[in-house]
């Protein structure tokens, strides 16, 4: 794969810690100085034992430079963001360690280099290197950028973070973005400016050396597909996130923290994209494998003491095995519990029926009413179903009376929920309004009825894949966009604008027919289901390399919360420019 974020991780690891190559090198124990931003980056990418085995014997925060103890025998590796510049300067003015290697996680400008140089009176800085990782690596094709609260200009911040991603992968891309979103438009021009201007020390000038085709940076907006996060997912990774929440690779279950990474958990790696049925089969096999291996080791049964010895020696391995099984068992049983508790088998099927247009409106309506009358189904789940219905058809006020009946719903729907239900459709139609108007102008009044629901109905068009699992029939809109990019002849309602950086234009011209590398950024949040989709597309088509990322990983709960805020915002402030701050 041409775009493998784990490769980035490895290369940067070697850059930072430089594992010893030969015997002649003198070993020096090292201390690692981080700031808050880089701490998350490091902890997501490398384990503590990896660091320890590379002679990192101390990890400190650079903000605490005042309280560090002096240890001149230690070499110091500084890996910080530019935000910690002032701390770094103070540290260099009265150094605590023997020598310094400074790594920045994004590009820095000349002025900043000068400041560091001025403060380095003791001449203890050996290296000053930019590495470009201002983002988190979740999977080999999935990244996430971190938002800091209170950023003055979020476009600027996000732009520089995405720029670091492009630089780290040595890509100077064509930028394609959804034309109907203001946020994306501003973000795209920010990135284009970053590429074209010389503020990055001309770093972009000689990228793409090994690219036959210009890479594409695809900027999308969550607002254009508000329904994917509402649908209950049925594959392992997404389900974990839906029911237990994956927070920076950590899952909290029953007061216990479980680390989930596909890089050193073979079972997870193999099963993270499996659907629930396949997953349980796989897990059963895994447990059986464990049983057969540990059966031999039952101490009481062995007669031969030599054998016993051998088994005892393997003890740590078994231990690892069993904790891994236990972790996954905990997760799966939690998922199972939630599914039966929330009656998701029925609800899930109903959701798929609604979004994929598998039944008549009348039948669907009847089924929804039975769901609404079931007091055991949580109000949130009912709201989700109604939202899907209201986007597919029009929202029916008669549902509200059932929903508000204290006999059927417990707790009663909140004001936010009711608000959202009545406004959901207009909320997202509104963003597409300009689009529709344009089309109407072009096609005249005759087509007004055909165009009425054009954006909405298109959301449902892409279910034609031959998926026989009734729970996995819905395909996110992302699929359509990617397919359209790969094969421009396909019909699609998606409108993409294109920006081409000067250097790319010089090299490839303005027309390009082939596509190889696509870097996707979904503004406003992404689901693991879409990440799985990307994984599948690139598995099936070796010609295409895809990575995807966002500023947040969504599940239905977090997305609903965002929607509540959004409707609230709509009421108080009709301007749509502030939308992004809430998303």
């Amino acid at each position, binding site marked *: 794969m041409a775009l493998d974020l784990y490769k980035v991780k490895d290369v940067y690891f070697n850059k930072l810690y430089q594992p010893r190559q030969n015997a002649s090198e003198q070993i020096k124990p090292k201390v690692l100085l981080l700031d808050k931003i880089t701490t998350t980056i490091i902890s997501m990418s490398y384990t503590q034992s990896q660091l320890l*085995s590379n002679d990192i014997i101390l990890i400190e925060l650079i903000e605490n430079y005042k309280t560090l103890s002096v240890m001149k025998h230690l070499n110091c590796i500084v890996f910080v963001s530019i935000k910690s510049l002032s701390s770094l300067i103070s540290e260099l003015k*009265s150094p605590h360690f023997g020598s310094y290697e400074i790594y920045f996680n994004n590009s820095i400008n000349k002025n900043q280099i000068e400041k560091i140089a001025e403060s380095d009176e003791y001449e203890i800085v050996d290296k000053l290197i930019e590495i470009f990782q201002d983002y988190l690596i979740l999977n080999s094709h999935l990244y996430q950028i971190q938002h800091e609260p209170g950023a003055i200009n979020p476009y600027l911040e996000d732009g520089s973070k995405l720029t670091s991603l492009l630089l780290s992968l040595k890509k100077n891309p064509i930028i394609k973005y959804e034309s109907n979103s203001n946020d994306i438009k501003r973000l795209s021009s920010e990135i284009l400016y970053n590429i074209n201007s010389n503020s990055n020390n001309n770093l972009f000038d000689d990228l793409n050396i090994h690219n036959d085709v210009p890479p594409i940076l695809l900027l999308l907006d969550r607002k254009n597909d508000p329904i994917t996060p509402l649908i209950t997912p049925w594959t392992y990774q997404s389900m974990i996130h839906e029911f237990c929440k994956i927070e920076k690779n950590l899952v909290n279950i029953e007061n216990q923290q479980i680390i989930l990474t596909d890089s050193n958990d073979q079972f997870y790696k193999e099963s993270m994209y499996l659907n629930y049925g396949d997953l349980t089969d796989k897990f059963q096999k895994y447990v059986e494998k464990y049983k057969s291996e540990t059966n031999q080791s039952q101490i009481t049964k062995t007669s031969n003491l030599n054998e016993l010895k051998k088994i005892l020696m393997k003890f740590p391995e078994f231990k690892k095995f069993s904790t891994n099984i236990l972790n996954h068992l905990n997760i799966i049983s939690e998922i199972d519990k939630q599914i039966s508790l929330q009656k998701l088998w029925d609800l899930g099927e109903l959701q798929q029926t609604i979004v994929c247009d598998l039944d008549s409106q009348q039948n669907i309506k009847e089924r929804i009413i039975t769901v609404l009358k079931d007091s055991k189904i949580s109000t949130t789940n009912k709201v989700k179903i109604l939202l899907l219905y209201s986007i597919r058809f029009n929202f029916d006020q008669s549902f509200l009376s059932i929903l508000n009946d204290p006999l059927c719903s417990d707790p009663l729907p909140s004001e936010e929920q009711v608000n959202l239900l009545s406004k959901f459709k207009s909320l997202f139609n509104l963003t597409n309004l300009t689009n529709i108007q344009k089309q109407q102008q072009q096609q005249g009044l005759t087509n007004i009825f055909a165009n009425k629901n054009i954006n909405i109905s298109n959301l449902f068009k892409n279910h034609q894949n031959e998926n026989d699992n009734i729970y996995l029939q819905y395909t996110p809109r992302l699929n359509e966009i990617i397919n359209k990019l790969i094969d421009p002849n396909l019909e699609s309602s998606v409108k993409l604008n294109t920006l081409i950086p000067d250097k790319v234009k010089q090299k490839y011209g303005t027309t390009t027919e082939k596509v190889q590398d696509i870097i996707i950024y979904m503004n406003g949040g992404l689901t693991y289901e879409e990440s799985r989709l990307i994984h599948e597309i690139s598995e099936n088509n070796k010609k295409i390399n895809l990575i995807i990322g966002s500023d947040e990983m969504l599940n239905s709960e977090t997305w609903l919360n965002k929607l509540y805020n959004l409707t609230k915002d709509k009421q108080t402030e009709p301007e749509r420019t502030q939308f992004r701050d809430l998303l």
Partner: protein
Amino acid sequence: MNKSTTPTKKINKISFGEQGFSIGDQQDKSSSSSPTGIVRSHWKTLQSNNLCKICHINLNVKNGIVNCRKCGQLHCNLHTHYEVRLRNPQFDEKTPQYDSNGIWSRCCETCYLERQNTEVLSNNLTEDFKKIRLTFADVNELKRIKVQRNFLKLVNEGKEVTHWKTGNHCSICFVKFSLLIRKHHCRLCGDLVCDDPNGYRKYCSIYLPIISLIDRLPNLNYDKIPNDTIKFRCCINCKNGLLFELRKQEQPENEIIKTYLNLIDQRYQIEVMLEKYSKDEKIGHKLMNHLKDFEKLVINFRNQFFTNDLRVVQIENEQLIKNIYQSIAMFLQDNLIKYKEISAIHVPPEPQKEEIKPEPSLTKKQVRELREQLMVLNEQKFLIENMIKDFTKSRRFDELNSLILNKQELEDTINELENKLGEFKFI
């Protein structure tokens, strides 16, 4: 998506290409370039039976017989659905090379994927940085000389040496002065600084006895040493400047680091030898000696920095010591099985002493596991002893012998385990 059916038109084209190739090859080898301009001299010629390099299918007109333009190997249609940009070989290159400005040419899957390497960029600014640093070196030195001169003046003449500056902000943390945050002046450079001895801004300036600085700078030209009651205010920049030479000096050896350096040195020796050992078993004894030394070092480390109940002695370096300890424990755990094997093979002349002692850094988990094993074994021993009693009663001597042997073996392992557990034997 990979299996997209090839239109018949394409197949014709391929067989044509294959024909074109064979003719070109026979007629004229010197100018063997295709219409596109990429040379074909490296193309593999057709043999009696041709197999696709990737799927090993028999190549014929139906499957397609295609030369990859890059490597020249023969492939079937299915594995040549790819295109890369190539340029002609230059100088002593033998095959066409990838070039992002080159000509689109058909290639095989292997060559296509080879082209798709993840590259990772990092930018080394060290050179630039050092150049800039050089320009600042003089300025900084000048500043330090000035501060030192002012300090001497202050000590010798005991009066104001600088012009006091005015302003509203601290020159270091830029806090605005107010009723609560009072203005102060550094007596060495005259800059305005704030004073906040206990709070967040406590590092802007300090109020300290002159004598304390004189003690640390004994080599300056003092006329007289003032008495120790005189205090003065000094900003952090001037203090750093004054103590520059002092700070530059080497710090005395640190016990922890010293021990750690020994440890990693020994560890590295072991790693190297382990690698050699897998090829050459003769160095087993040497390796054993290194292991023994390492073990001694670890025990020393533990005795030095930990109390009996595994608490760190030096509180100020607690994290450091714990980390070191953990990294050693990790190294031992990873390789424990190997060491045991080695020590089992190379029974040294004095077996009692030479045998690898249990690593002293038994973690709690290990202790628990070992205890469990011990319990199981003890139970078994107890059972066997009972059986022995029963059998002696019932006079079944023929089975008794093997039982006693069994018991002996069990006892041995129990002893071994107990040794391993050492002080952790009892719960």
